[in-house]
């Protein structure tokens, strides 16, 4: 599972960088989304994988052995929400940019006209 997730994270980072380097601004935003997801998974894996164990045990006060760590999950939840907000804003920005300039090409970003 660990190796599978590590590969997945690598593929996501690779795809993200590829998209970030495209000339199309919309693909840039897609790249940002991928980058965010790759990082969320990285947080999850770095926090330690525990399979088949819940994060909170009802009724067992002192039984913490083998329990999975709830903190990385809370962090990822926060990071997902923040990422969602920023992505929504970035998409609006690109849409507005398209409406003003009628193009989504990177060259339009340079200031010398």
């Amino acid at each position, binding site marked *: 599972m660990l190796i599978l997730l590590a590969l997945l994270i690598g593929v996501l980072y690779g795809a993200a960088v590829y998209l970030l380097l495209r000339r199309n601004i919309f693909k840039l935003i897609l790249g940002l989304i991928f980058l965010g997801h790759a990082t969320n998974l990285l947080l999850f894996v770095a926090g330690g994988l525990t399979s088949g164990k819940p994060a909170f045990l009802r009724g067992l006060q002192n039984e913490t052995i083998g329990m999975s760590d709830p903190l990385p999950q809370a*962090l990822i939840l926060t990071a997902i929400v923040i990422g969602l907000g920023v992505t929504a804003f*970035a998409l609006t920005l690109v849409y507005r940019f398209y409406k003003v300039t009628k193009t989504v090409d990177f060259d339009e*970003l340079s200031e010398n006209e």
Partner: protein
Amino acid sequence: MILILPIILPLLFMVVLIFTRRWLFFQQSFSLVGSVVLTAISLLILLDVYQNGILAIQPGSWDAPFGITLVADTFSALMLLTTSFVAVVVMIFSPGFIDKERQTAGYYPLAFGLLMGVNGAFITGDLFNMYVWYEVMLTSSFVLIALGGSAEQLRGSIKYVTINFVASIFFVSAIGILYGQAGTLNMADLAAKMRTWESGTYINSALMLFFIAFSVKSALVPFFFWLPASYHTPPIAITALFAGTLTKVGVYTLFRFYSLFVVFDEQFWQIFILVLAGLTMFIGVLMAASQFDIRKILSFHIISQVGYMVMGLGIFTATGIAGAIYFTMHNMLSKTNTFLAGGLVYQRSGSYDLKYLGGLYKASPLLALLFFIPAMSLAGIPPLPGFFGKFFLIKGGFEAQQYFITGVAILTGLFTLFSMVKIWNEAYWKKEPEEVKQRDGKVHPAALTATAVLAIGVILLGVFAGPVMEVCLDAGHQMVNPEMYINAVLGR
């Protein structure tokens, strides 16, 4: 519990301002009062911290290291105070500069959102919480920089949003890796744990990721290109607010992290940071010298001056850090002030381009004076604060026997003077270009008052350099002895 106010109050103000968005006069006056209240509270915190030592509270009654801790040492308190003062001035300036559409479209609530994020980042004692405050600050700044939606602004915002998003990703990745290694997110607890380890093999990758994230945010070489590409696009009141607060948060975090987390391989980090600091100040000032737009010259200057602050970090003695902290405070005031003075030039003559400006000294000596004070302060002419900031940095550099970087700092000072004199010569002294018909604009009294108030603030910071430097030395002392911070948070 006073420590929670710099975060809660901007939130409350923001909520009130969102619901009263259409009442222009209420927005303006409420924002001004709100920022004055924040300044008063920051002053109280500073007094408290300076007298009683580092202040730490555990909101939610979860003791450190399990809950989120809020900590203020002298450095944080000084930064809080300077930020709120900059906010007061910008709140006076904005009604006289920003158009009504932008003012009623949520400019004021967003400005308080920004302040909440900045204040939060200054006083949090928790890594992940720091990330959240960064995002609060950045999200507000994303909207502020795009507010109004002109094509130029949209171009700037896309670059700004992208680079900051990527930097945040670096930040979160570092947090994840560090948590996996140490199992704690409380900064003091983490620092205490690191001091019991035998080698830094496990944390160096995380530290490098942190370093990249914050050097993007504070615009260090080689990660500075986004700043001059985006900062000049919104109305200059917004640029002034950004210049006075945003990059400085990056610098603050670099200082805090270096002090707490660089336990291993100090030699490497010190040289690394000093090299980048030297490159940053020199490249920044050279690029500033080649520009002809006032806003761009000043934007490149931000980069150069960040180099000075980080140089103090690289020296890492109490004097060096104190000099850097004083320099940061001076820079927040003087830099904002030059941007505001640039705004006055724009109101008077309708352009930021030096080629189309001229004769302003003859037309309005007062405007010239209001630019002259902060510009000379940035260039480092006594008795203005820029001189004392550089003096203490250079003194710290000599004491720590870092002669090369100190030489670069002195040389950079010369170029800074050159580019300030360039603005002065072109905009104020040379004759009005004949082929260009000058717009004889009216300068708004609110904008003029704000710039004058800030100029007085700059002068006072220089005049009272002695007592302020005492406080900065206290902060520097706390930074080079991170045990004080650790013990205050963990209640030992």
